């Protein structure tokens, strides 16, 4: 089956609904343990999902959109997303692992080698989502700069990704020669200074880590508007977008760079019984004391209804979907054990992995090295 959408799942805490941690199947006391994340990713891998993503922030907060509030009734605390991805990598073998990294406060040199290393550990399954910092709490946690306007942050992020990419290419693939006759471990002609000079930082290079197995691990960005679409077009391989309906899909598709792989984000609440998912969401809303809303479209329904929607939107030009489970593990297992068989039954999802690497799965060839002669 070649024609179906790619499928990714966005893992976040106990799920994307703020009351998800109170569900009977939730494991809220284990959110900071390796076992919790391993179980989720292995569940996704068993269903042959293309990749999973891990959210992150550099501050204590649970809702990316609202102002920070001291709240004791929602999940608080999180682990570094790159380290979670790395922790589960040896315990999985095929699924792509795409952590989020906040680029506004961190060093591109550090992130470049971390993602390259994740790519080595996972055998070519690493990606990274770059996220700019918009929240005052993150700035105060670092104390280095004042919050900047969005345009500036996106420009800086584009520079950041350029540095990541140059560093990944700073070693040619065959730079390690181990030539016993001349005593040379590397051929220094195949190591390259990147000499990046920009408004926010300059980086000399080369990387300390050789070029990763994928050459360039895929870079992702979440985008809601034209400026962010532009960043994605400048810097990313795939973009997560948030259409509200099919017409919106077409509009967004026209607005983003045509070379990009485009994934629609959907928050999903699923149940086999018609109407039950909506009831469950309503119950969670009651528990939370507010109706859940999201930057992405919130879907409630059966796996079959979701399959209808995905295939319809896919036909409008999407590469795939990044499903955000409303509650974990319930809505993840509804995807893996309900939606996936449903799509397979319609000939619209693979029975096994075809490509070994994340790039391969996204239909991105392994790129030539920009520095190689």
């Amino acid at each position, binding site marked *: 089956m070649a024609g179906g959408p790619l499928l990714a799942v966005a893992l976040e805490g106990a799920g994307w609904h703020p009351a998800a941690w109170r569900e009977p199947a939730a494991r809220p006391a284990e959110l900071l343990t390796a076992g919790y994340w391993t179980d989720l990713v292995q569940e996704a891998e068993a269903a042959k999902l293309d990749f999973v993503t891990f959210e992150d922030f550099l501050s204590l907060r649970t809702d990316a959109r609202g102002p920070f509030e001291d709240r004791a*009734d929602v999940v608080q605390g999180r682990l570094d997303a790159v380290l979670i991805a790395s922790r589960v990598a040896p315990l999985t073998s095929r699924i792509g692992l795409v952590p989020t990294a906040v680029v506004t406060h961190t060093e591109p040199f550090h992130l470049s080698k971390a993602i390259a290393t994740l790519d080595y550990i996972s055998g070519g399954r690493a990606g990274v989502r770059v996220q700019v910092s918009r929240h005052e709490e993150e700035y105060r946690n670092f104390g280095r700069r004042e919050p900047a306007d969005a345009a500036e942050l996106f420009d800086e992020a584009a520079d950041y990704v350029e540095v990541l990419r140059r560093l990944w290419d700073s070693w040619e693939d065959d730079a390690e020669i181990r030539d016993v006759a001349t005593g040379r471990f590397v051929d220094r002609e195949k190591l390259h200074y990147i000499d990046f000079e920009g408004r926010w930082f300059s980086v000399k290079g080369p990387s300390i880590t050789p070029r990763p197995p994928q050459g360039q691990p895929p870079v992702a960005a979440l985008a809601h508007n034209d400026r962010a679409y532009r960043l994605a077009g400048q810097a990313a391989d795939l973009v997560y977008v948030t259409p509200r309906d099919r017409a919106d899909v077409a509009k967004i598709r026209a607005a983003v760079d045509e070379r990009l792989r485009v994934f629609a984000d959907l928050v999903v609440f699923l149940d086999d019984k018609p109407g039950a998912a909506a009831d469950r969401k309503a119950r969670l809303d009651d528990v939370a004391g507010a109706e859940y809303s999201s930057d992405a479209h919130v879907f409630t329904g059966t796996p079959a209804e979701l399959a209808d929607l995905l295939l319809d939107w896919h036909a409008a030009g999407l590469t795939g979907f990044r499903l955000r489970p409303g509650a974990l593990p319930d809505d993840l297992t509804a995807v893996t054990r309900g939606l996936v068989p449903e799509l397979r039954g319609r000939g619209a999802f693979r029975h096994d992995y075809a490509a070994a690497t994340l790039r391969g799965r996204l239909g991105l060839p392994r790129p030539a090295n920009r520095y190689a002669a």
Partner: protein
Amino acid sequence: MTEPKQIHLAAHFPGVNNTTVWSDPEAGSHIEFSSFVKLAQTAERAKFDFFFLAEGLRLREQNGLIYDLDVVGRPDTFTVLSALAAVTERLGLAGTINSTFNEPLEVARQFASLDHLSAGRAAWNVVTSWDAFTGENFRRGGFLPQDQRYSRAETFLRTAWELFDSWRGDEVVADKASGRFLSDAHAGAFSHHDRHFTIDGRFPVPRGPQGRPVTIQAGDSDEGREFAAATADAIFSRYGTLETGQPFYRDVKGRLKKYGRTPDQLVIMPAATFALGDSDADAHEKAHEVRLQQVSEQTAIKFLEQLWNTDLSEHDPNGPLPDFDPVVGEDLISKGRASVRMYRDPLATAKEWRQLAEAKNLTAREVVIEVTGRQTFIGSPTTVATAINDLVQNDAADGFILVPHVTPGGLDEFADTVVPLLQDRGVFRTEYAGTTLRDHLGLSQP
């Protein structure tokens, strides 16, 4: 009769130096994860306290060119350690992370994450800074003057501790029935203001299984020793003999009292290399062969250039040492390498080396072999086990961090032959008593 001291052992995955013999037919990749798994699992099988990774944030250069004779390149420390947590169960996971090209919240968050993901096995070797050369890879550059090195490092560490301590450890109750996730809505609040860091907010990672990750230092100057005495759980020292180890041990442990600490709250572990053989004679022969591999003709010349601080590419490594004095002043030749600074007085060092060459009739290469990186322990397994135990029982060290010269299999023989002998003598564990690195090191939770 008092019980013998228990020895602590750690395994260093060797980095980019000429200790590592990459040309050995047994040598594997220094990048592929399987190599890290192999060494770490050997260390865990042998019940070692921890596995250790060093750091280097720019490729070294000599004569303006990237240094190509040693292993070049290494993966990211945090990422490797987190993945190793998946393939080991008890082994401590220690990494060097510098305090110059990072921010306290970021590093504290990564170590706290690693501590959770490894169920209490994380350790942080805090180092101060590198030069502007390394800084060229980072936003903030090499801004830190020498006289602020300890000041920033100490402040950085204390700030990170404030962040770790911003959670008491009992706030996450996750009570579904009552809807209380936290017992304290303000958990993680901190406010830190000093001349290096002005930060306040909420630390995003609840307290890890060890409270704070184990803190390791490697300071040797008076300032460094004082800093370590005040803050460290373990020290990596350079003193692997009775003569050098005992004074260091006495000095550093003697400094603890003024910080309200007891001698068992700081574990002193020199780095050590080893060569084993069926007999002592075999081992010495093997040790010599390894030294010849470690110091090739080209490596000898490059090493001399670092001291002489000038181009010696035309010099014959099998002839005498250069007959002129080193060039004194700024490092012209070698960049990104810490060891050169060990020779604080290059003129005096060159004079010593010439005297040594004359006395023993040595070539330039033979001098380098003689004065650098000789193996700490050479002998049969029994000889080595005895030497290690003597050093520990006589308070020259609490244990050793072993640096094999072949990656990743270079620890196997030690694990299979020396460790059982230490266990037979009752000076090294046969099973892990606890689950966290603090348990292994006998450290209480802060």
